């Protein structure tokens, strides 16, 4: 048993070991660097769905074969590749978005939002989402509208979505 443990932690440095090591390193680089990128959530704009300090992974291939749909949680590129905004899609290109008495209306129809449980008093005149764009908002609507980061963004800025 001791021998097996020792062999596990201090394996023979032969050719097979180096090949295995290279394969594991390459796979880890591709998977965690490009496909499912680890991320830590900062801020409270997605409360109560996501808390500040929570850990998740960004699945970058999520929208390779389909477009984000209303209700999806997406990650929007902020500047480079590392800082992302976590938001929920509420409307897609061609639809109209507005807030009346703190309630979301898409194409003039009231949209039930069970995920946005906090009280809201936002008022936003109707605006059309441009083609090739999605309208994203955080779930935490209890903050003043001016300080909440939301709006329409091009699909090219969508980096992916969280795994959980």
């Amino acid at each position, binding site marked *: 048993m001791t021998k097996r443990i020792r062999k596990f932690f201090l394996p023979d*440095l032969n050719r097979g070991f180096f090949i295995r090591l290279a394969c594991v390193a390459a796979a880890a680089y591709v998977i965690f660097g490009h496909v499912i990128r680890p991320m830590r959530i900062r801020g409270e704009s997605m409360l109560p769905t996501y808390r500040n300090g929570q850990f998740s992974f960004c699945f970058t291939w999520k929208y390779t074969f389909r477009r984000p749909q209303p209700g999806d949680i997406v990650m929007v590129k902020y500047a480079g590749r590392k800082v992302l905004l976590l*938001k929920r899609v509420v409307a897609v290109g061609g639809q109209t978005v507005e807030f009346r008495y703190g309630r979301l209306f898409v194409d003039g129809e009231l949209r039930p939002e069970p995920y946005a449980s906090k009280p809201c008093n936002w008022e936003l005149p109707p*605006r059309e989402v441009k083609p090739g764009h999605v309208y994203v908002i955080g779930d935490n609507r209890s903050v003043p509208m001016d300080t909440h*980061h939301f709006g329409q963004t091009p699909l090219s800025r969508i980096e992916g979505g969280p795994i959980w």
Partner: protein
Amino acid sequence: MVKKIALAVLLVVALTVGITLVKQMLTGEEARIRQRCQHLSTLLSMPPGEKLPAAALRAERLRGFLTETCSFSTSTYKLSRELSRDEVISRYLAVRRMLRSVDVLFKDIVVEPVTDLEATVRFMVRANATAEDGARESRTAPIMASLKKIDGKWRFAEFREETVLEK
């Protein structure tokens, strides 16, 4: 066993050095631009209690980072115009006089070379400032900057605040 550990350590060191060298060779110009950005953020920062001569020296060094004219476009401060290098320096010194300290950080820098003499950089700027009266303010913005290579040095020609989400 000691020999094995020594070999493993040697291997890790050799791999790290090798990867760094290859990366440096492949992305030499990119690394230089990235370094330039980091240097600029250091120059824009101001430690508390910095004396005026030191600030003037910083401003002079800042001159070497800009092209003859530099254009600024930011929706946050409603500024959209081209400024000469002297104007930038004088505005920079004026802002410094109003502040006790500033901490500027460029994060998540992505370099996109356009040609051998032009490049585009995207980064997130985070600035924490303390005014003379002690009031504190923190701002974060996504920036797109254009650089030109003049006399062998990368100089900033444009700073534009990117609109990520349009209300």
